[in-house]
């Protein structure tokens, strides 16, 4: 197995040829500055998969190979040819072994990458002295009926949505717009998360229409209250951004926008709604209220001994 850097053109060709559905594989993400696209190749030179990383600065003077910005994970995708379960497990292990060695060869001082939830075998990373830590997201199974999904909400979230509906809040699936962008950027600002505004703008405005669900709630006087932006493909919808107006507030506006995104995803016959990571206590509590299942995914980290001890001071759970 061989891994090497490839161009977005090669990636698009591979994805199209193999009919792979992945909403992150499009220009609004693939042209992010610093993104690196890695192709996975079999011994015979045939491409079998891909994943993405980004080279970022840490502590101002260190470079890290990390999960690309605005993506929940590195999107590792691999087309297995094995049918026998034992052989399939062996094949996946070889992929992880190759990825773990390859990341080390990239030469960045820190490695910190999250993987999609369908990848569970991280033993090659553990054996290669990486730290593998568990992260969580919530996912809704949209094969359940709307009634059942509504019943599964927490009492508080149900109350939010019912109140918003009773008070005639208007919910619309809209084209992305400046108000929406401003609400999304406001959320990052309030949470003290540094983002590059132009990247968020690009994702909001340039993501293909078939790959997004953009929803806004308005009060009865048509003042915008809250918004939701999800990325969607045939496999699942992923909540990406959200926000609310600081001028016009309603406690149920955000929950109603999220609930509408869930319903729209279901109407599109997509089976999974992913809340995209829920590791911050307040966010986790909010998202938990939507009644999804807790789904683990894994993050690998590695650095030199001294850098790890240094980073441990701030990020004990990771280093």
């Amino acid at each position, binding site marked *: 197995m061989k891994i090497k850097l490839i161009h977005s053109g090669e990636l698009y060709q591979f994805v199209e040829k193999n009919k792979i559905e992945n909403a992150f594989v499009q220009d609004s993400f693939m042209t992010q500055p610093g993104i690196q696209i890695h192709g996975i190749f079999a011994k015979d030179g045939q491409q079998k998969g891909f994943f993405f990383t980004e080279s970022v600065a840490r502590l101002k003077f260190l470079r890290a190979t990390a999960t690309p910005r605005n993506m929940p994970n590195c999107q590792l995708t691999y087309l297995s040819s094995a049918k*026998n379960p*034992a052989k399939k*497990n062996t094949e996946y292990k070889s992929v992880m072994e190759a990825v773990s060695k390859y990341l080390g060869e990239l030469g960045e001082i820190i490695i910190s990458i999250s993987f999609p939830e369908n990848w569970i075998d991280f033993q090659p990373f553990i054996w290669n002295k990486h730290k593998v*830590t568990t992260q969580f997201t919530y996912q809704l199974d949209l094969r359940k009926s709307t009634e059942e999904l509504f019943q599964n909400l927490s009492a508080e979230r149900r109350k939010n949505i019912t109140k918003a509906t009773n008070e005639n809040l208007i919910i619309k699936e809209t084209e992305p717009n400046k108000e929406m962008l401003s609400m999304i950027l406001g959320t990052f600002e309030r949470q003290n998360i540094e983002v590059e505004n132009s990247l968020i703008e690009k994702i909001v405005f340039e993501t293909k229409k078939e790959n997004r669900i953009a929803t806004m709630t308005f009060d009865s006087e048509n003042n915008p209250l809250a918004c939701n932006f999800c990325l969607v493909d045939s496999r699942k919808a992923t909540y990406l951004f959200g926000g609310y107006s600081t001028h016009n507030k309603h406690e149920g506006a955000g929950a109603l926008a999220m609930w509408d995104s869930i319903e729209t995803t279901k109407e599109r016959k997509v089976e999974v709604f992913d809340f995209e990571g829920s*590791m911050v206590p307040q966010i986790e509590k909010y998202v938990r209220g939507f009644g*999804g299942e807790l789904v683990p995914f894994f993050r690998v980290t590695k650095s030199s001994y001294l850098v790890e001890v240094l980073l441990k001071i701030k990020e004990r759970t990771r280093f």
Partner: protein
Amino acid sequence: MKIQPISLADIGRLSPPSVFNSEDWIKVYGDDLNLYGIFNANQEIIGCFFIYKRKRANVLTQISPPPFTPHCGLYFKSFATNPAKRHGENKKLTKAISEFIDSQYKRAIVTLAFPPSLLDTQSFYWQNYKVIPNYTYQLNLAQSLEVLTAQMDPKTRNLIKKAEKDGLTVEKNTDMNLVKSIVRQTMVRKGVKVNEKVLSTILFQFANDSNSFSFVVRQNKEVLAVTFCIYDNQKCYYLLGGYNKGNSHAGAGPLGVFESIRFAQKQEIPVFDFEGSMLPNVESYFRSFGGDLIPYSTINKAPFVVESLLKLKMKQQF
């Protein structure tokens, strides 16, 4: 929610289904095992777990699962049916455990494993524990023997066939001295430390027909390999195994394991668990039986300086 020390009788009243929570198993460790109950706001016991304490480098205390036990035996009754409420309940419970460990074992090295059934470990993460997956392989015994055989790695399947062709026999074994001797030999060969006292207690005091079985593989009356499994109504665990290096046959081990799987299936036990597969050589052997890789969580923490020192040797854990 509150955590308090409890007695063996309290655990019995909870009736946890796992063999690792059974009275006979817990007795193996005597006073070395600290038993804890999880109590709700009404002071009713709703769950339990145990902690094994040992000394490290004479001055440090480590808490972990006991030897030959894969996890801390966490068991709890869940009452909520609404998923959002159930998650909230689980979070309260794990928060109580993490705060309890933090307060009671503040200066200890914590390396505790939980059963695969505990998915939600966020409370530990929020309490600055490193939550790291470990793995085991599990076979679903509801599948027919033909399917189970077809799912094996062809090499292992052929080794079993070759063993049968070469006249190796496999039969139930009741001689625990034989198990001890072969298992000990194998562990010493692999450089794994053996807790002789616990091993003997498991084999000579715990083991009986209702909780365990063993198979021996022979060729011309020479012992080649042994297996020893323990079980409950839900799972059969491949706890111990070994082979006689002097009289080896590459198919002896796989034949013994396959017979153990077959026996567990006949007992209508739904799952065969290889009980941890973190050593590369052992993992590849277990993987070849075609089971599903099942992650389970471990939580790891120590005082900062101790963690930094442990990192020198166990970078993947601290």
